[in-house]
C-alpha cells in the first residue's frame, strides 16, 4: 500500500522542454489567454441564451438547485404525513390524499432528489476534480438536466390536479394494473420513471466518459480521487440497473394502455415478474445514492484530518464490490412473497456480506482520523455524525437480511426507520456536509459556521427523535403506508413523539436553508482553497472560470495540492480561440489528442421539450409514440447539424487528399 501511496515524485524533466521559462507561461500571455478563453467558453447571455447553457458548472448548479427544490417538496409531504399520524384516527387528510402523498414522497425523494442530486454534484465536480476543462457530451448533459426538470414539473402538475400516483413508489401490479389502478395515476408514475431514467442514463454515460477520457495527464487509475471513483462506479450501476425498471414500467404502461398481459396471471403473466425487475433496479439504486456519499466522506475526512485518506486501495475496492454485491440482494425485498427458502437464503448471504465493504471503509476512516491532525468545521461535524447515524441503519440492515426477522418487520415502521437511517444518515448527512464543504467553490462565499452548527444540532436531534422510535413502532406491529390507526393499538404516544421530532428536524433544515440564503449575499469571500484540501477542484478560483483551469494541470500523485503543485508541469498548446479539450488514455491518462467541444446550443432544450411532449402524449394514446417521434427526430437533426467549422464535402475531400487532414492513426 504505502509504496504506491501515489507519492512518487516527478523524474528528471524531459530535456526537450526548455529549462528557461516557457514564453507561453509569461504572466502577460496567460492574462491575454485567460481573456480569450473566457470569451471562447462563455455561455450565451440573454433569455434564449439561458436555455442554451452547456457549461457543466452552470448545468451542475441548476441540477443541484432543482434537486433541492424537489427535496423541499418531498419534505413538505413528509410533514403532512407526520401531522396526520401524530394521533390516532386523525382527519387532516383523507385516505385517498394520504396515499397520494406517501407515494409522491417516496417517488420524489428517490427519483427527483436522491439520485439526481448525486449525479448533479458529479456533473459539477467530477470535471474539476480530474482537472478537465469540460464534461464529456455537454449538450447531452444539458438535455439530461431539462428532462429532469420537466420530470418534476410533470409529476407535480398532475399531483395538483389530484391525479398524483397513489400506489406507492414501487407501484406493484395488480394494484397499479389496469383492473385496480383506476384513472391515469399509475400511468403517471410509470411515465415519471421514463422521464427520470432518460435523464439519469445520459448523465451517467457522460460521467463515465469524462472520468475515463478527460483526466489530467498523469492521473492514472490509482490516482483518481475517491469521490470520482464513487461517481464512476455509480454511473456504471445506473447504466446496468435502470434498464430493468424501464422494462418493468414499460410493461406496466403497455398492460394499462394497449392491453398486454405481462403482469396479468389470468393470461399467463405474473405480478412477481414486476417485483423482480423493479427491485433488480431498486436495490442498486440505494447504493447509487449511498456510494457518492461515501466518496464525500473520504474527501472531507482526508481534508480535515490533514492527511491522505488511509487505505485508498481498500476503499476503492470496497466501493466497487459494494456496487457488484448491490446487484445480488434484490430478493430481500420479496422475502414475504413465498419464494423457496433456499433461493431466498442466497440473498440473505449476499445482503449480510455487503456489510463488509462498508465496514472496511469505516475502519479506514477511523484509521485516518486516528493518525490525522483534525479540524472541526461544520462539514467535519456532519461527517462525524454520519458515523453514528449510518451505523444504526447499517446494523438494522443486517437484521433485515435475515429472512425470519424480515418476515416480522418487513413493511412495518421498522423498515421505514431502517432505510431513513440509511438514506438520510448515509447520504443526506454527508450530502449536507459536502454542500457546506463545496459551497465556497460553488459560489465563492463561505457558509456561516455558527448557523451551520445550530442547523446540524437541530437536524441531528430531530432526525433521531423522528426515526429511532419508529423501530419500536414496527416491532409493536405498526405497518407502513397506513393513513391512520385505532387508539387501542397503543401506537399514539410514540407517533406523537415521532411527529415532534419531525418538527425539530424541519426547523434544522430551515435554518440550513437560511444559512445558504444569507451566505449567498453576505458570506465571507472564499479563497481558492479555503480548507487547504488536496484535490484539483481547489486549484482554480472560487467559483471557477468557464474554462476551469489555466494553465491546464498535470498530476503525479493522489493529492496533487499537497505535493508541491508548483513543481508540476503544466499543459500548454490547447488553442484558446476554440473549445479545445485534452483527451487522455483510460489507464494512465497519457495525452492522446485534442478534441474541439461543441458550442452552446438551444437544441438540447428543444429536444427535451419534444421528448416530454411524446412521453405525456403516450399517457393517453399509443399513437403518441409514433407522432411524437417526428418532432423529436427533427429536433435531433437540428442538434446534430454542424455549424461554423463545416466545409463542403468536395473541399474536405480535397483537403484529405492533399494530406491536410490526418487522424491519429495516420500521423507517422
Amino acid at each position, binding site marked *: 500500500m504505502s509504496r504506491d501511496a501515489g507519492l512518487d515524485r516527478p523524474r528528471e*524533466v524531459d530535456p526537450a522542454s*526548455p*529549462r528557461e*521559462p516557457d514564453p*507561453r*507561461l509569461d*504572466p502577460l500571455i496567460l492574462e491575454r489567454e485567460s481573456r480569450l478563453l473566457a470569451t471562447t467558453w462563455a455561455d450565451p447571455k440573454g433569455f434564449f441564451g439561458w436555455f442554451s447553457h452547456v457549461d457543466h458548472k452552470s448545468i451542475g448548479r441548476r441540477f443541484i438547485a432543482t434537486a433541492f427544490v424537489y427535496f423541499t417538496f418531498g419534505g413538505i409531504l413528509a410533514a403532512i404525513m407526520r401531522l396526520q399520524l401524530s394521533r390516532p384516527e386523525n382527519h387532516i387528510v383523507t385516505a385517498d390524499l394520504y396515499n397520494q402523498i406517501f407515494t409522491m414522497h417516496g417517488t420524489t425523494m428517490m427519483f427527483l432528489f436522491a439520485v439526481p442530486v448525486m449525479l448533479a454534484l458529479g456533473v459539477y465536480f467530477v470535471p474539476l476534480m480530474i482537472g478537465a476543462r469540460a464534461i*464529456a*457530451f455537454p449538450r447531452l448533459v444539458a438535455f439530461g438536466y431539462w428532462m429532469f426538470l420537466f420530470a418534476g414539473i410533470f409529476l407535480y402538475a398532475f399531483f395538483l390536479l389530484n391525479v398524483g400516483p397513489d400506489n406507492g413508489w414501487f407501484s406493484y401490479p395488480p394494484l397499479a394494473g389496469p383492473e385496480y389502478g383506476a384513472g391515469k395515476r399509475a400511468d403517471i408514475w410509470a411515465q415519471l420513471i421514463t422521464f427520470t431514467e432518460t435523464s439519469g442514463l445520459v448523465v451517467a*454515460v457522460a460521467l*463515465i*466518459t469524462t472520468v*475515463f*477520457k478527460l483526466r489530467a495527464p498523469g492521473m492514472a487509475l490509482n490516482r483518481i480521487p475517491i469521490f470520482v471513483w464513487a461517481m464512476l462506479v455509480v454511473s456504471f450501476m445506473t*447504466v*446496468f440497473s435502470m*434498464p*430493468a425498471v424501464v*422494462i418493468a414500467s*414499460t410493461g406496466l404502461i*403497455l*398492460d394499462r394502455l*394497449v*392491453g*398486454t*398481459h*405481462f403482469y*396479468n396471471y389470468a*393470461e*399467463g*403473466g*405474473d405480478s412477481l*415478474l414486476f417485483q423482480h*425487475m423493479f427491485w433488480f433496479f431498486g436495490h442498486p439504486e440505494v447504493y447509487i445514492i449511498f456510494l457518492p456519499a461515501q466518496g464525500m466522506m473520504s474527501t472531507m475526512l482526508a481534508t480535515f484530518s490533514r492527511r491522505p485518506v488511509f487505505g485508498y486501495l481498500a476503499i476503492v475496492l470496497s466501493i466497487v464490490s459494494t456496487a457488484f454485491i448491490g446487484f445480488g440482494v434484490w430478493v430481500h425485498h420479496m422475502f414475504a412473497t413465498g419464494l423457496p427458502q433456499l433461493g431466498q437464503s442466497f440473498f440473505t448471504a449476499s445482503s449480510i456480506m455487503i456489510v463488509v465493504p462498508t465496514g472496511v471503509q469505516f475502519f479506514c476512516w477511523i484509521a485516518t482520523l486516528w493518525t490525522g491532525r483534525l479540524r472541526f468545521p461544520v462539514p467535519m461535524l456532519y461527517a462525524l455524525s454520519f458515523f453514528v447515524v449510518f451505523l444504526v441503519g447499517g446494523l438494522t440492515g443486517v437484521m433485515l437480511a435475515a429472512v425470519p426477522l424480515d418476515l416480522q418487520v418487513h413493511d412495518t415502521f421498522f423498515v421505514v426507520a431502517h432505510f431513513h437511517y440509511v438514506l438520510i444518515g448515509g447520504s443526506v448527512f454527508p450530502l449536507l456536509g459536502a454542500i457546506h464543504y463545496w459551497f465556497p467553490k460553488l459560489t465563492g462565499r463561505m457558509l456561516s459556521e455558527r448557523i451551520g452548527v445550530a442547523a446540524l444540532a437541530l437536524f441531528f436531534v430531530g432526525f433521531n427523535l423522528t426515526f429511532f422510535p419508529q423501530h419500536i413502532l414496527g416491532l409493536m406491529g405498526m405497518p407502513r403506508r397506513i393513513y391512520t390507526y385505532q387508539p387501542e393499538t397503543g401506537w399514539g404516544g410514540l407517533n406523537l413523539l415521532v411527529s415532534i421530532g419531525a418538527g425539530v428536524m424541519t426547523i434544522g433544515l430551515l435554518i440550513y436553508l437560511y444559512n445558504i440564503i444569507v451566505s449567498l449575499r453576505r458570506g465571507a469571500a472564499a479563497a481558492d482553497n479555503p480548507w487547504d484540501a488536496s484535490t484539483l477542484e481547489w486549484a482554480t478560483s472560487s467559483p471557477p472560470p468557464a474554462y476551469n483551469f489555466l494553465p491546464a494541470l498535470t498530476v503525479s500523485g493522489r493529492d496533487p495540492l499537497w505535493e508541491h503543485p*508548483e513543481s508540476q508541469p*503544466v*499543459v*500548454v498548446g*490547447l*488553442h484558446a480561440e476554440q473549445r479545445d479539450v*485534452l*483527451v487522455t488514455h483510460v489507464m494512465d491518462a497519457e495525452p*492522446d*489528442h*485534442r*478534441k474541439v467541444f461543441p458550442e452552446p446550443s438551444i437544441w438540447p432544450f428543444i429536444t427535451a421539450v419534444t421528448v416530454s411532449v411524446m412521453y405525456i402524449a403516450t399517457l393517453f394514446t399509443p399513437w403518441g409514440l409514433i407522432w411524437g417521434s417526428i418532432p423529436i427526430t427533427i429536433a435531433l*437533426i437540428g442538434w446534430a447539424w*454542424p455549424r461554423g*467549422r*463545416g*466545409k463542403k*464535402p468536395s473541399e*474536405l*475531400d480535397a483537403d*484529405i487528399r492533399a494530406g491536410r*487532414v490526418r*487522424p*491519429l*492513426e495516420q*500521423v507517422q
Partner: protein
Amino acid sequence: MNRAVLDVSELPDFAFHHRNIVWWGTMGMIVIEGTMFAMLIVAYLYLKGRSPHWPPGHFPPMLLWGTVNTLILLASTVPNHLTKRAAEHLDLRKVRLWMTIALGFGVAFNIVRIFEFKSLNVWFDENAYGSVVWTLLGFHTAHIITDFVDSCVLLALLFIGPIEESHFVDVAENSMYWYFVVLSWIPIYAVIYIAPRVS
C-alpha cells in the same frame, strides 16, 4: 515562472475507436440497450418457465421471414464493415458508396420485418406470451429504425455538407451501432423462433 511544460499543440484533433469519446458515448448507448434486451429476454424465459405449455395455445412463429431477415442482417455486415473501414481511411467516396448499399439492406430488412410480425401467430393482447414476443420484436425494430434514420441524415450530410473531419468518426460509430443491432438480433431470434420449439 520556471516550470516544465507538457506541450500538446502537436497532437492531432481527432481519433477513431475507443480513443475518441464519441466511441464511449455509443458504447454507453449499446450497453444500456443491450441490458434492456437482456431484461426482456429474461422476462420471456421467466414467463416461459411459469407456463405449463409454451407457446400457450398457439403455433410457434413461422420460421420463414425471421430467418430471411436474419440472413439479410448478417449480409448487411459486409457493406457495414466496408463503410467503417472507408471512414477510418477518410475515403469520402467509398463511404458514400458503401453506406448507401448498407442502407439498402436496412430498407429490405424493415419491409420483411412487417411480414415477421404477421408470422408470429399471436397478437400482443392475447396473452403474456404474445405481449413479450411483440415487445421484443418491436423493441428491436425500434432500434433498426432509429439507426436507419440516423444513417440517412448522416449520408445526406456527406453528400450535401457541411461536414468536418469528425463526421468520419460519426460514420464509424454509426457502423459500430449497426453491428450491435445485428448481434443483439441473434439471441432475440433464438428466443422468438427457437425457444418455442424446444420445451
